[in-house]
Structures are given as structure tokens and as C-alpha cells.
């Protein structure tokens, strides 16, 4: 993990939802597009080793719960588009991906590094914050109960 920033968003606070370009170049998107659903915002970069470690678990979780009032939303930060797309292809990630090349959204989220994940409730407020990589156990024990799903 790399370090950056000092404070983090608190649970219950509105999560910033700026418009960002989609990583695949197909226009733009925002966290706000998923209002009404639970969203696990995952901030990652292709140059980050722990991001590689957590990707299979995120993809598996999205395959299990995505589309049922829930989605994983990837945010590729401080990364080149090419490298980001290569990463997405390598891990066969099918959930939506936004591109935060300048790292401005990462600053808005006040992350302490990458990877970092934010579970956002249907009202757009922070429900859970995970600095560092997520694991299958974490997703099953911490995220699933909140989104009202079961494995």
C-alpha cells in the first residue's frame, strides 16, 4: 500500500460522487448513477500489488451479488488507461470501472493509500470503510450482512 492523506470519511457521511471518465473510454459515469443501490467503491491501481491480490475476491463477490441492488464500482486511480485496461483484462473484471488519472477523486475520498474500499448505502452515505485489500472473509462477514444478501 502507498500512503496519502490523513483523514478519512466517517460512516454516515455523504460520499463524493463526481463525474469521472469510464476506463474503457465509453463516456463518463459517477457513483450517483447507482443511487438506490448498495455500491462497493474500490479504489485501485495497476501498479499496486495488494490490488492484484484482492481482485479475484471482488470479481467473485460481484458475480454473486451484482445486479441485485448491489454493484462493485472500480476506480482506477493515478494510473495510465492502458495499464488499467490491461489489469481489468488480466483479472477478467466485469464490474464498472471509472478512471481517476490525476488522483483527484482519491483525494476527495481522503484515502490513506490503495487499495481502499468504501461501501456506500442506497442514499449515497458511507456505511463501511476498508483501508487495504478486501478478502473473501471480509466481504462475507462485513459487507454481505449490510447489503442484505447471503451466500
Amino acid at each position, binding site marked *: 500500500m*502507498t500512503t496519502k492523506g490523513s483523514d478519512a470519511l466517517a460512516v454516515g457521511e455523504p460520499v463524493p460522487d463526481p463525474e469521472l471518465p469510464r476506463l474503457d473510454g465509453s463516456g463518463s459515469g459517477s457513483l450517483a448513477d447507482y443511487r438506490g443501490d448498495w455500491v462497493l467503491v474500490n479504489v485501485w491501481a495497476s*501498479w*499496486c500489488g495488494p490490488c492484484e491480490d484482492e481482485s479475484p475476491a471482488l470479481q467473485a463477490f460481484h458475480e454473486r451479488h451484482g445486479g441485485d441492488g448491489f454493484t462493485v464500482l472500480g476506480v482506477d486511480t*493515478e*494510473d*495510465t488507461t492502458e495499464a488499467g485496461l490491461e489489469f481489468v483484462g488480466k483479472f477478467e473484471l466485469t464490474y464498472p470501472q471509472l478512471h481517476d*488519472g*490525476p*488522483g483527484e477523486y482519491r483525494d476527495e475520498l481522503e484515502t490513506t493509500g490503495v487499495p481502499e474500499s468504501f461501501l456506500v448505502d442506497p442514499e449515497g452515505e458511507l456505511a463501511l470503510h476498508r483501508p487495504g485489500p478486501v478478502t473473501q472473509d471480509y466481504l462475507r462477514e462485513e459487507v454481505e450482512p449490510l447489503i442484505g444478501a447471503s451466500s
Partner: protein
Amino acid sequence: MRPRRALAAVAVVAACAALAAPAVAQEPRTSLPDIEDEVMCPVCGVSLELATEAPQAEQMREFIRDRIDDGQSKEEIKDALVAEFGGEVLAIPDDEGFDLAAWLVPGAAIVLAGGAIFVGLRRWRRAGRRGAEPPAEDSLSQDEAERLDSDLARYEL
């Protein structure tokens, strides 16, 4: 005669092309070290040339090398980096728009400071000259001169 004229025209065009080709070939090609010191590694917070081991820096070098191999110019590569990472990726500010202030403000500050020092020194020299001048002989009034003489006489100096 027409075929000959046509042949001559072809020869002239070929000659021009031959002369132009070296000019294109001579255009200097950029290099990784030439760009590294002008861009930042955003995550590392230092210029790319100083970010020797950071994974993001290595990825940026690969990005630059690929474009050098594609024959892109230094400016084209820097523009591509700005498109990916934003204007803050440039270690040297641009010479237009808001970034122009980064060039103008220090220059203006140097000129103003130099002007202030120059004016201060001139005033100082003038004040020094005035202080070194002997007092004018007629600086005492008649009454004061008489009083001074009487005082000096009283003390027998």
C-alpha cells in the same frame, strides 16, 4: 518531346523528395532521460528521474518508452501524460494560462527587490554624503556666535 518533359518533371520531384528526406530524418528524437526530468511521479511526489523504484514510476517510464518507439515527439508524449494524469504531472510549469504566473511572479519579485535595493542604496549614499559635509561657517546666527565667543572666553578655552 512530351515523354522527355514528363521524365524531367519526375526527376525534379524525385530530387526534391531526396533532399527533403534527410531533413525529416535529422529531426531529433526524444529520449526517456530527456522527458524524465520534466514530469512528476504523482504518487512519489518527486520528478520521475528521482523516483527510481516506485512501481508507478516504472509504469510511467514504460508509457513514455512505448511512445518514443512509436516516434512521438517530446511534446506529444508530455501531452499524453497530461491527458492521463492532469497538468500536475508536469514538473516544469507551462508557459501559458495560470501556469505562466509561475514564471512571471519570481521574475517580477526579483526586479522589484533589485529596484528596492538600488533606491535604498542611493538614498543611503546621499545621506552619507550630507552627513560627511562640514557644517557651513555661517550656520550660526550673530547672537549665537557672540554667545559662543563669550562662553569660550569664560572658560578660557
